[in-house]
């Protein structure tokens, strides 16, 4: 196994992490303002289908006169709007009617499964609707020429870049801006926010709905940057993995990206295993190494962002980071014996990682204090 192979693996991990990260950002916005969102899966699924229908039908309507990129962008916008619309339903049920937010989320997921399956059966598959293609790769000038790093980070399709930008903007906005301060206060202590004149319910509506648009983008990624067409239930649980990433990332966007990358890496490894590029023990060692290194990276990021509040000693971060790198180097250099594992199990890797992470590494992640509780005056 060489460096090039490893770089390829990370590139693939970043791609696989993109929809998960979008989903996690959707959950972040919703939950930071105090609304539990387990409907991310459904929002992504609707987003995926609508991006497909939007791009294809727009392309048919214009008769192919415009370049396919225009149709793809239209598909993306339609996905965002439909994600936002579904989120509005969730917000409306849980804020206006104070429906239990878990129930509301479950209802929306079931609704999304039903609608998309029906549409696929009755229309998309029935008329053999074919896609308009996928977004092209964009090489960022200069940056993409950097050896290795250029390949990993700067030769992607547009939604990957958009995801990275979204994560950065949200991290800054949540902790440094007026919107962030108000959103966090509404999620932690809505009554305190109310007494200083912040409109609690309006803040929640806005956040849930924008979150829905982000989930829609996550779904659109699967169609517009990956397979190029809609398949039934194609999100395959990524919305729920996103939720796990959000919790593992302790409700910060950088943390959530870190854990999304871990899940993405697990998925990428699964792909490489199926191709027979590496063997199982190597994969496991790599996964552990990457996990530990990512943890250290996230800690560094949090330390840089919240200088005053972070009490983790720099030496600890250095030791953990070093251990992670050591693991990766070992995994890449040592020859591991071959153990045969049935191919079906390899696809389980991301889910296995989710369970492992939630059970073992999260520790005491503290959710926003008022999450799940409808706000009532008096």
């Amino acid at each position, binding site marked *: 196994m060489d460096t090039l192979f490893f770089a390829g693996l990370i590139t693939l991990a970043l791609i696989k992490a993109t929809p998960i990260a979008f989903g996690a950002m959707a959950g972040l916005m919703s939950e930071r303002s105090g609304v539990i969102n387990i409907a991310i899966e459904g929002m992504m699924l609707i987003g995926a289908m609508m991006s497909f229908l939007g791009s294809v039908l727009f392309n048919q309507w214009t008769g192919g006169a415009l370049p396919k990129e225009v149709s793809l962008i239209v598909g993306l916008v339609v996905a965002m709007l439909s994600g936002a619309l579904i989120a509005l339903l969730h917000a409306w049920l849980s804020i206006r009617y104070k429906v239990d937010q878990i129930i509301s989320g479950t209802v929306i997921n079931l609704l999304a499964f039903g609608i998309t399956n029906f549409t696929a059966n009755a229309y998309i598959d029935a008329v053999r609707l074919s896609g308009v293609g996928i977004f092209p790769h964009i090489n960022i000038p200069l940056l993409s020429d950097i050896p290795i790093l250029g390949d990993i980070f700067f030769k992607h399709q547009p939604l990957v870049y958009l995801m990275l930008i979204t994560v950065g903007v949200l991290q800054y906005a949540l902790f440094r*801006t007026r919107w962030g301060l108000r959103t966090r206060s509404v999620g932690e202590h809505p009554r305190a926010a109310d007494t200083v004149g912040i409109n609690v319910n309006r803040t929640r509506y806005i956040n849930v709905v924008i979150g829905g648009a982000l989930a829609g983008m996550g779904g659109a990624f699967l169609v517009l940057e990956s397979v190029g067409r809609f398949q039934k239930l194609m999100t395959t649980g990524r919305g729920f993995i996103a939720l796990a990433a959000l919790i593992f990332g302790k409700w910060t966007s950088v943390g959530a990206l870190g854990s999304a990358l871990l899940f993405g890496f697990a998925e990428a490894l699964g792909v490489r295993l199926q191709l027979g590029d590496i063997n199982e023990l190597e994969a496991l060692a790599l996964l552990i190494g990457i996990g530990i290194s990512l943890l250290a990276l996230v800690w560094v990021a949090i330390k840089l962002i919240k200088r005053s509040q972070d009490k983790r000693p720099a030496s600890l971060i250095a030791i953990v980071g070093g251990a992670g790198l050591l693991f990766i180097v070992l995994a890449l250099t040592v020859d591991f014996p071959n153990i045969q594992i049935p191919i079906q199990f390899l696809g389980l890797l991301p889910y296995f990682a989710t369970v492992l992470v939630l059970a073992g590494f999260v520790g005491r992640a503290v959710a926003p204090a008022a999450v799940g509780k409808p706000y009532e005056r008096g």
Partner: protein
Amino acid sequence: MAQPILRLEGITKRFPGVLANDKVDFELAQGEIHALLGENGAGKTTLMNVVYGLYKPDEGQIFIKGEKSEIDNPKEALARGIGMVHQHFMLVPVMTVTENLMLGHETIRGPNLGPLSTLYRRQVAKEIKALGDQYGLPIHPLALVQDLSVGEQQRVEIVKALYRGAEVLILDEPTAVLTPQEADDLFVVLRTLVANGKSIIFISHKLREVLKIADRITVMRDGHVVGERKPAKTNENELAAMMVGREVILQVTKGEAQPGQTVLQVSDLKVNNDLDHSAVDGVTFEVRSGEVLGIAGVQGNGQTELVEALTGLRPAEGGSIVLQGQQVAGATPRRITELSTAHIPEDRQQDGLVLPFPVSDNLVLNTYYKPPFSKGLILQRNAIMEAARERIQNFDIRTPNAQTHVGSLSGGNQQKVIVARELSRTVKLLIASQPTRGLDVGSIEYIHKRLIESRDAGAGVLLVSSELDEIMQLSDRIAVIYQGKIVDILEAKSTSKREVGLLMAGVAKEKAGKKSNSSE
């Protein structure tokens, strides 16, 4: 007289089934401390929430500096110079003091990007530090609110109101969470504020402190204003009678204690809280029959965990609990109950009663499985009803009938249901935790009488309370708990409120002794 800074005229506020404020008139002069005195549920807080824009009045008008004003939300109240310090602090625990103070009207730096403008924390931190120092309210702008003591959080709340430009400060039961010393410090701050031209509305149900701090006292009862007094021309008894509507005996009359055998012996007991941190850290004490041992302490110093461990609701991490010669650490609540232990829990609605059950069932929750209330597996409804009627009579529980849901009774009557249940059998040990919290003066009088009666009947009474007055009045011995440790056990007769107060605040014993000596 000069124009009042705030005047309320005929304020009426109805909630479903309740008339919370009935044509209330109220006036606040510039530069005065005007106390609003009344029982819980008299409508004080409702009235102030109307002023602060949290509730809309059904009738009536508000005049600020003589100008008629509509206050629809807190933002408008703040804009008109009215700030409120709520009884439950309106601070976000996980945020810094600075973030809490700027919330809602943030100072920004750099370009104005609307909601996405960057916060200018450093500037605000500087401003609020200066503001706090100006009024003698030192605060740490960068500290997280959750790391602050209750007294410090209250200071932050006051600075928050001042930072918003409040001219009128409404303080809702500000001393409820403070030690006596912290309360004295607060009074100094209030005087400084008034000297600087601020006006203060001080909501309280404590007679003594109202007499001490207020320039003028308005008494409310059942949503009405009963009258207005100057502190110099009134006294505790008159104010109490106005609050309750009848004469009340404020002093508990009790004879000399006749301590007998040890009923409860606690040695080196260790208990953890819900977060698995140490809450009770090796306490040792004993309760003898025929005496009241008071546990004094500011809320949250391990009292809750201690009582839960003694009653079998929470496991002990170490040490021993010997109840009438039997080791009961780790025993089930039922075993402890059957050793003639009565328990009046801290949270009567959560732990004391099943709210949707009728009064009759709640009255036998501790004995329902025994004859005559049960034969085998079958409940004996008639026996239960009969016992209920008798107890309702004996303990003066005001309820329409025995089938009424306990949740619909008033707090005082709910507490009487618990007392009736617990004391309607032979009691060797009575554990009463905050037995009068949130009750009206009349019910407090009643509960106190019952506690002393139990003592005189030969039971050992363990009284846990954060009301220092209650501890001083009822106890024969006083154990002071601070950060999970018993700092000292004092004879009630030979100690002073000041000494206990200092111990409650964590001032070491020798120091406290010195201080109280020097003050004598």
